[in-house]
């Protein structure tokens, strides 16, 4: 008796939404094992990791702060992934967006204008787009694989950041630390829940989710993206321009990643420092898949993934576990998701085929 995969007649709607839950459950179980191996009480650890960070209002606002960049980036990546455009360099686009937005804040350091913040947002978006334009140009013009180019540009982007804060942008009054001056209030995102760090970036992220949802479901751009991803020949048949869709996908994902970078430096960080993101650009890849490449799914997945960051911090402080546990959880979650996705298209059968149920006409 062997285990076999049998294609379902049609995609299982239930499993599309069910498999992320299966994956989360499997990750939690594996987490218990992992904590046991690490020598801490598994249940305590799970509580510290997943419950205690959100047991207060403050915790929830921190969750939203962390979820903001994840959701923004993952929504953008979802466009690309649906069109089979594999932008995995969001971390680099985030960095350049942060530098473009933050650079403006340093350039107009003393500015009192209310226009500074909107200008920084635009600069951040444009910065991310510019960084994503390189793989877009190389792919459409020279057929160069965007996975590798966008990824290489992450390292280049991080080195640009390092160069700037060790050199030209180093704070004159910063004891020679490699970081910029603290932004003035005009260049800082307003907080909307007082006494917390929850800034208006979260509201913008929610608006982006809503807009993307509408675009994906009802707009011709969303339709073209989906058709190119599912059946590129059918897209040609319909007259859709594949290069245009590649550009759109990379501009949306690059722009949103750059925006996320600007939000990080102008919101929770307030300056430009060596580490702007703890890998949000990569984690957002998991968020996009976990959210089924659907903006609303991404919203919830982003919050869950934000929780793993908070949980990692809490585990480090309270249980003295290395912060890297977060990365392990995130990787496991994606594995389990990919594994349980098999249930969407296939059913698992033991032994020989099902008994004959009915006769049907010719197969195709």
């Amino acid at each position, binding site marked *: 008796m062997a285990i076999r995969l049998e294609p379902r007649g049609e*995609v299982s709607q239930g499993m599309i939404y069910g498999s992320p839950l299966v994956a989360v459950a499997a990750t939690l179980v594996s987490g218990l094992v992992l904590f046991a191996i690490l020598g801490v009480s598994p249940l305590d650890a799970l509580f510290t990791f997943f419950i205690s960070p959100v047991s207060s209002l403050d915790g929830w606002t921190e969750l939203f702060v962390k979820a903001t960049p994840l959701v923004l980036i993952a929504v953008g990546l979802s466009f690309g992934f649906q069109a089979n455009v594999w932008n995995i360099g969001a971390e680099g686009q985030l960095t350049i967006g942060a530098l473009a937005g933050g650079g403006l804040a340093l350039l107009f350091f003393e500015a009192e204008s209310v226009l500074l913040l909107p200008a920084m947002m635009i600069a951040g978006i444009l910065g991310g787009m510019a960084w994503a334009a390189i793989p877009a140009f190389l792919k459409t013009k020279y057929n160069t694989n965007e996975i590798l180019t966008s990824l290489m540009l992450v390292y280049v982007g991080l080195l640009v950041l390092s160069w700037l804060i060790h050199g030209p942008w180093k704070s004159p009054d910063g004891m020679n630390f490699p970081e910029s001056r603290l932004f003035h209030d005009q260049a800082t995102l307003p907080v909307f829940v007082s006494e917390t760090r929850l800034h208006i970036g979260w509201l913008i992220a929610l608006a982006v989710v809503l807009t993307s949802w509408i675009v994906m479901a009802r707009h011709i751009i969303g339709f073209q993206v989906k058709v190119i991803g599912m059946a590129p020949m059918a897209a040609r048949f319909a*007259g859709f321009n594949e290069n245009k869709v590649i550009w759109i996908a990379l501009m949306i994902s690059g722009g949103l990643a750059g925006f996320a970078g600007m939000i990080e430096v102008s919101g929770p960080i307030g300056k430009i420092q060596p580490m702007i993101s703890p890998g949000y650009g990569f984690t957002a890849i998991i968020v996009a898949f976990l959210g089924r490449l659907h903006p609303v799914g991404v919203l919830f997945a982003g919050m869950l993934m934000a929780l793993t960051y908070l949980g990692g911090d809490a585990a480090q402080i309270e249980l003295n576990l290395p912060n890297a546990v977060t990365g392990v959880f995130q990787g496991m979650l994606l594995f389990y998701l990919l594994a349980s996705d098999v249930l969407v298209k296939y059913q698992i059968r033991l032994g020989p085929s099902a008994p*004959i*149920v009915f006769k049907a006409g010719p197969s195709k």
Partner: protein
Amino acid sequence: MIEPRLELTGITKQYPGVLANNNVNLKIMPGEIHALLGENGAGKSTLVKFIYGVQKADSGQIRWEGKHQEVSSPNVARKLGIGMVFQHFSLFDAMTVEENISVGIVPELAKGDLANRITEISRQYGLPLDPQRYVHTLSVGERQRIEVVRCLLQSPRLLIMDEPTSVLTPQEVRELFKTLRSLSEEGVSILYISHKLQEIIDLCHNATIMRMGEVVATCKPENETPRSMAEMMMGANLIAPERPDRRMPGPVRLTVNSLSVVSSNQHGVDLKDINFDVHAGEVLGVAGIAGNGQRELMDALSGEVPVDAEECVIIDDHKVGRSGPTDRRNAGMGFVPEERLGHGAVPEMSLWENAFLSGAQSMSLLDKGFIRTRESADYASNIVREFNVKTPGVENAANSLSGGNLQKFIFGREILQGPGVIVVLQPTWGVDAGSAAAIRQALIDLAGTGAAVLVISQDLEELFEVSDRIAVICEGVVSSPRAVSDITVDEIGLLMAGISEPSSSAREATYGH
């Protein structure tokens, strides 16, 4: 008593939703050429996969030379002496002829001087091949020879040929039949799978006829007519499409002018100086063997691969050579590509989304960049109703439909947009007989309304049924169209083989018996 070489009893296989084989029995004697006849989807290919060990049946027995035998893999089949020539060749483009043969035979045979043995066998059976050539540089006919030589090298006692002639010219078919007859005289059994009736009558000793997964009849082809076998195969009297009396052709609606295209694909065919007109009210058929530029012609006409000069393609007075599909649709053109799933339709998308796919502009389904979902669904429902598409509803995904139903949906989608010109490639490939008849009728009716219809097909019977004029494409060159009443199958055969001026020597080689 002589044991049958192969005997199948009670073979049954259930796929999700389809009973592919139901209690099938089959017996082949040594030296016998046995036809397995049936429509696409009748279960022939499934049955063969069990014999060759590619798949396992749910139940039933295989006896080989009198003994019960499990054929668990193609390696086992090959060791028994079963060889198979696949319909879709199992070849590797980036490898040489020798490597292709080596990888497909038992390791012991692949050792030593394989290249010499290949040359020897190919000379012996009149199948010339150069072992060092790369497969992607070979013609379709030459590729089939690789498959045949691969089998012959293993001295098979049963040779399975799956639709071997669909890629050959009538003249090449005659050569192949010679080879098969001499093999049969040497005692090799041949299982010959086809749906081409005349071929079976010419070649085979016995025939087993399948319909919807079951054996419905067995016969001696020499005692039958194509019509009587066709009736056994389809289970009903044939319906020939009705066509109105020929009228005077109307004005030219589609002009193809000095169309030359260098194929962007390494393995593609270049189009060379193609010229023809299609008139209002006319069906023009383009015959040809697979891989002679049909796809490239379709791409150039649909605009999926625009050409260099605007005047190469003219639709009514619109020069559209350099335009893409959208502009051509706006000029009144519709098209149906060969591949249903993935080209003509998005498999995972619903029928209404697929209706929107090509109807967005002409049916006004787009409003300031937003999809008008209700109108799209109405349009899809219209198609389903008018073209008798069997589906629970327009929310269902395209890949939930059977081949025939999806093809009817795609044709309906194009025809309901009221095209002035329609270009279709292989319109009834892999479609059940009922749907095929409906589609052919729809094309004739569309021409009746004054549209210009261009049908590119490898199915000669189909072309004779629907066309007013027929041209032939061969190596990217299209012959000048001739009225159906003025051209014979023999002449088309020569054109398909690339012999444009029938000379006296070529005349001797005409298709026939």
